[in-house]
């Protein structure tokens, strides 16, 4: 699949041609608030303590209870954000919309259900997260 936009991040599939998108039939493992549209795939990285930022690779999916400014460096590398808490104008949602990344907030228990290195698809348009 060729990305339409040369600026698309690794893992970000929201810019791919619609005809090449895989149709998902599985049930999502998490649902929440569709805070920023687009679809991205990547490996989960759960950040539980904003003071202890783990190694974060370009294109990883940032999973946190809420996002905070100390995470800005990894937020600038992430392909999508998933948070336990938050609305349409929460920190994660605003940042995601600004840089055109998918974001699902208010999932209640993403930090508990999603584990590091798990491959997921984040659908920020529907507010759903699928395990791949």
């Amino acid at each position, binding site marked *: 699949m060729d990305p339409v936009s040369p*600026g698309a991040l690794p893992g970000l599939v929201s810019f791919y041609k619609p005809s090449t998108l895989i149709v998902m039939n599985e049930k999502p493992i998490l649902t929440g608030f569709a805070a920023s549209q687009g679809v991205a795939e990547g490996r989960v990285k759960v950040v539980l303590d904003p003071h202890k930022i783990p190694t974060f690779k370009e294109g990883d999916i940032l999973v946190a209870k809420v996002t905070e*400014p100390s995470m800005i460096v990894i937020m600038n590398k992430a392909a999508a954000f998933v948070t336990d808490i938050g*609305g349409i*104008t929460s920190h994660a949602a605003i940042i995601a919309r600004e*840089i055109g990344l998918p974001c699902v907030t208010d999932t209640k228990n993403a930090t508990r259900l999603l584990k590091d290195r798990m491959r997921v698809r984040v659908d920020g348009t529907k507010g759903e997260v699928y395990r791949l």
Partner: protein
Amino acid sequence: MKRLTYPKWIDAYTKSMHQAFVGMTPADWGPLDFNQCFRALNGAFIEKLHEAIVQIKRKKIPAGEVARHFLSPSGFRAVFYFAVTEYAFSDHTKRAQAREVFDFFNGVLGRMFKKDIWAYESNVIHSENEVAALIRRTPWTKGSSDSARLVARLGNSASALSYALYRDYYVAESQEVYGPYDASSHFGPHHILVIKHYPKMRPIALWPQARTFRHADKKLYLIYEGVKMKCEFIGMHTRYEGDLMSGLRKYAVEIDGVFYNDPKAIKKKTEYIGGLAVKQWGLYRSMSKQDLKMKFLEWMCWSCRPLFELAGTDTGPSDTMMRNLKRARIADRIKMPAMMSYRKYLKSRDWEAYWLKDLYTK
């Protein structure tokens, strides 16, 4: 026709506040439960505001002049909300004082904004002529998806530093998003101008180490085509319709009065500012609960510093404020569930719609 028994602005204000809370919640804000702080103050900050307002009136300083001194109009709007919250949690013994403060704030807000004072949809402080002049004198760079992301990341780093300096309740002090402004006469149909402003980014009086920060003020000027923008109560609570990446037609980055268009230079600034944000955030780890309480009072006073300076009153927290907060038990975070419906909110005794009407009708 039924006559209102309370000022008309209360309806517009509560409608906008409710919308903002629907957008923000569920929420988890820190580094303290600020609502408990407002409760603990028991009207002591309103008293300080009132003292300043009496002096402003005595000096006959017009509302427009007061408005001109506030670099963060959304921050001023937020201060109004905090004062209402403080009143709601207080013992309600100073009703006349609270009314005078709220009426004064209303007057100043009316001079700050060209329309939509409570930012139900927009955050507009510039006139059409000012927008036209600004568009003419700005050195624009052609936009693309790449540059949209480049500039957005700079904005995000600035936003992170802003959060680190002012935290969740006072962040509007150094983050503004103005607009949407119609830019169609300059760039063609369906073009809008959005201005992101990050003022007060070197607040030495609050954080002495900010003395070493290289930049105090950042502005991003963004021309979008086919994008709709609205905001909710404070400028930075933006919502967009349309693709911000492919819709960016022109942009300009201004830092401390200097324009930058080299992507490498912008990236370097982004990394520098992001690094400052992470470092600044780390400072909170060494702060005790009492330190944070005092910082809350400093933020509170900082947000109204221009008012106190114009009035010639003390710019720091009063003894009563410090005494009231020092002895109060305050939780680490505010956890707010999803907002109730507008109908329930209007009737709830827990929210400002009730308290404000009560204040003005009894």
